[in-house]
């Protein structure tokens, strides 16, 4: 359903993504793992189109540092020139890293803004669902986003992405700052979301342990290149992967 072919991203003269190809089928969960600065966030931004936007903005401000190459196909259509908002309308929703919630809006309002693409029924239904998977949020619906604790913000960010009715959800480091219990629940919920709501999910994480068991297919990024790929068992049994991501 979704595939990216030969993605290349240059920051100035530095190659941040080198010929990365990746595919994700319906209802699949795809994991992208890699250490710091492997290029996970860069990949996620590129897939969601945000990178285009960043490049465009930089160009306007004078710099022309970012170069993008490659094709992205979604449902048989080349979307590599689409604006991020258009991709979002088609169902590709990114939950960006470092949270980026709306600090001056309350939790509820954050979620409502997230529901911009949803119709009222969907919004109401998803809202309930979000509160179901993140019970701590129910207690703080009135609090301003900027005042939340790190973990609360992370939950809110994921919840907000869900509100946008994704068909393909891109999660960038979703576990960052979550307590173990919530991490565990989130990993379970990701699976549930994929299966019950028919959403394809691409997760980028460096903390692979909780995510690895739930993925259908995975990629290991290193210095911008996809060095290993394979399904869950392939990866789990790969000795390099094992030592790097499970500390064993």
């Amino acid at each position, binding site marked *: 359903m979704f595939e990216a072919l030969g993605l290349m991203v240059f920051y100035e003269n530095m190659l941040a993504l080198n010929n990365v190809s990746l595919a994700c089928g319906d209802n699949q969960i795809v994991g992208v793992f890699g250490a710091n600065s492997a290029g996970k966030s860069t990949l996620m931004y590129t897939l969601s189109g945000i990178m285009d936007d960043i490049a465009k903005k930089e160009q306007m*401000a004078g710099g022309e540092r970012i170069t993008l190459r490659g094709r992205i196909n979604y449902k048989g259509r080349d979307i590599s020139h689409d604006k991020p908002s258009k991709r979002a309308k088609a169902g590709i929703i990114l939950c960006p890293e470092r949270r980026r919630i709306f600090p001056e809006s309350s939790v509820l309002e954050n979620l409502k803004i997230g529901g911009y693409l949803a119709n009222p029924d969907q919004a109401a239904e998803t809202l309930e669902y979000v509160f179901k998977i993140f019970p701590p949020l129910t207690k703080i619906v009135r609090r301003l986003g900027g005042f939340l604790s790190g973990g609360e913000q992370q939950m809110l960010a994921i919840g907000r992405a869900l509100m946008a009715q994704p068909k393909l959800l891109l999660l960038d480091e979703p576990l960052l700052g979550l307590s173990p219990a919530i991490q565990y629940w989130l990993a379970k919920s990701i699976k549930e979301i994929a299966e019950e709501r028919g959403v394809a999910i691409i997760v980028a994480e460096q903390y692979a342990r909780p995510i690895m068991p739930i993925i259908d297919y995975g990629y290991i990024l290193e210095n911008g290149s996809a060095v290993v790929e394979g399904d869950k068992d392939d990866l789990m049994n790969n000795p390099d992967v094992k030592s790097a991501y499970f500390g064993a």
Partner: protein
Amino acid sequence: MAKAHESRRKERLDRGVKVRSDGVYAVASWREMAFLLGPRLLLIAGLMVMPLVLWPAPYWQKVLTIICIYSLLAIGFDFLAHYVGLVSLGGALYIGVGAYISALLNTEMGLPLWATIPLATVLGGMVCTVLLWPCLPLRGVYFAIVSLMFPLLAARLIEAFDIFGGTDGIMGLDGFPNKWSEMYVLIICLLLALFALRRLVNEDVGLVFRGVKDNDQSVKASGIDITRYKALGVFIASSLGCLGGACLAHIYMWAGISQFALDFSIIPIAATVVGGGGTLAGPVIGCLILVPISELLRDFGTLRIAVYALILMAFIVFKSEGLMSYGARKYNQFEHWVEI
């Protein structure tokens, strides 16, 4: 994704000497020295000979002094905004304070111009810093607006209480002995200020200033008192403005409440935007462009300001990074297309 040139991209390489990390130079040959020093020498020499070039046009010599005054304000603004993170819309306060202090020292105490100008610079800086002290905790737009209110308030107070000559202002100041001293004092002050500030911002203290701008919470967590640094920044910027104000007062032999006028706040900022914020030399270039344009347009009469505003807008919109940043980039880098 970029549509044209599917298989090529623009590569940028730094030209020779400048190592990627700022501030470390490995100077090898006279060519590289020239490359580094060229622009600086150009600016210095250009400003120094300008008065001579303008010999046949005495009016433009006058314009040059005004440019210098605006430039002093503008580099002060640039420093404060882009290195300390305080956007001060109240440049007029500095001009006014400087002008009044030197006027009072000159007319009331009879001090000569050579004493009043330096005194006004330092005292004025202190006065402005003390006035703005309570506002230092303010952030962003809030600081900007409050600082905008100060010159308005100062003018109103002088008017309402009829102090310092009230609305008539203070007349009868000493003028500069001749126009050459007028011009060269300002030009030299400007160049000194420019290079001193450039030096400062690249020193370790300067990094602390930039830290305050980027993230004051982190600076606090590093055990540094941000209020002190902000105040120091305000002092530096306002001293420059006061210096300009003091000179202005002596050039026109008069100080009055209109020295708190909005134009003194706006034009330096516009110059900074045009020239390129955060470059320090940019604002000077901005002034060198904007002020003469405004003078050239005088013949348009009433339409002048409208045309001026349009030109200003065009600069901002089409070279939004600022002329200086643009120029520096082109000067320091090669660009060429390479195959991916």
